[in-house]
């Protein structure tokens, strides 16, 4: 039986490890390689590494650090941030990543997803959408463009039609807050999207994971909880297993 994945999300800014709250108030908290090494030792299901300001600052892809991160990973690795061309995708995959997360570039040019999928396969394209709730309405948010005037669900459907392999759905409002995932947001997407949805933003304790899976998430990403609480990915999985959700439990 297919297991629900618990995916630590490592946020980088200028390729330093940071924590963020609602996409701001960043604080550098350490070196990415050491963190990735710990996750590999903990036998995590998968890892997402995002350079959050790469697009904003038009930074080039940091091949060296991606290679260093990939060398520590014997699990699937997704890298995102500042990917603008097929050449960038090639560089990132060639450095050892398995998937790339696309956000900014796809908003203005959704067919970029098709271009990547055609050359490298859908399995390596994670379409990332950041969502902010404004006056009770979910809106697409981008650091560079601000609120984007596109319906988030329509955008996700478009990404799926273009050949995305998975959708990474991040609630900006919940980011770093530990108040739980936005289950209402998940329900909005759940019935419309047929590719796997990874929800991100807000997990504060193992119980939050149950709510998210019941609301239609396929996989759960989290940053804050794993960096700043006593909870490990394995503890989340044990809670889920206790409630009869299929997860990959690791011995030891």
């Amino acid at each position: 039986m297919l297991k629900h994945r618990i995916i630590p999300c490592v946020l980088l800014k200028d390729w330093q490890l940071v924590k963020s709250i609602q996409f701001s108030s960043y604080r550098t908290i350490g070196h990415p390689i050491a963190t990735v090494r710990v996750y590999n030792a903990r036998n995590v299901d998968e890892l997402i590494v995002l350079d959050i300001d790469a697009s904003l600052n038009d930074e080039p892809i940091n091949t060296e650090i991606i290679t260093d991160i990939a060398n520590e990973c014997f699990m699937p690795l997704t890298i995102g941030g500042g990917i603008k061309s097929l050449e960038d995708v090639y560089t990132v995959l060639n450095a050892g990543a398995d998937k790339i997360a696309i956000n900014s570039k796809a908003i203005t040019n959704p067919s970029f997803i098709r271009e990547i999928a055609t050359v490298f396969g859908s399995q390596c394209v994670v379409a990332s959408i950041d969502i902010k709730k404004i006056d009770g309405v979910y809106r697409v948010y981008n650091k560079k463009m601000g609120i984007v005037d596109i319906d988030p669900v329509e955008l996700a459907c478009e990404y799926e039609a273009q050949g995305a392999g998975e959708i990474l759905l991040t609630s900006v409002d919940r980011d770093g807050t530990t108040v739980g995932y936005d289950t209402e947001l998940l329900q909005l997407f759940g019935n419309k999207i047929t590719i796997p949805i990874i929800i991100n933003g807000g997990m504060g304790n193992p119980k939050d994971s149950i709510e998210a899976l019941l609301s239609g998430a396929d996989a759960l990403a989290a940053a804050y909880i794993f960096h700043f609480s006593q909870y490990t990915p394995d503890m989340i999985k044990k809670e889920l297993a206790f409630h009869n959700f299929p997860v990959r439990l690791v011995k030891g």
Partner: protein
Amino acid sequence: MSDKIVIIDYGMGNLRSVQKAFEKVGADAIISNDHNVIQNSSKLVLPGVGAFKDAMSNLAELDLIDLLHEEVINKKKLFLGICLGMQLIARKSYEFGETEGLGWIDAEIIRFDFSDSPIELKVPHVGWNNVAYVNSSPLFENIPDNSDFYFVHSYYFASDRQYVTGITDYGVEFISSVQKKNIFATQFHPEKSQTHGLKIIENFVRLEGTSVC
């Protein structure tokens, strides 16, 4: 003579990940599509992600189809196919029309189709799923039955049970690993499956010569 493991470079994805996994278990593996290098190898690895048709046309363009047949079928070199590399050893695939494969095992590659099932599962099948052993295989030595491995695919290998070593349940029970004499293949990615995956790579490295029967 030490083993010369060659990872076949035919322009289809994550070769570096596979090479890294070999390094991790203490084995050297060369990435190459050079005919001499392949002829001088003792073991061959065919990884790959992407579309079946592109993969076959890339192999044809590099003149690798006859060469692989000679090395694996005639010379009986140990072979490991991973993901798309497992699918390519089948007779035929139905991905984007019909494409002939290497034909080393009488199998067809078909798409997951849940349109008639009560629960519509998502395609691709992506994530960790368990492999139930069917017959014993040296590839699974010292790995518990029903261990989880990482999968990502929309099509699967359909054949009779003769060469099946592992099956996995995703709405249907599909074949997740096979072995026919010196030919080993897994639908999942051992190079991305943490400790159990690395153990598979190590088991393949440890296999000796052409003594497998």
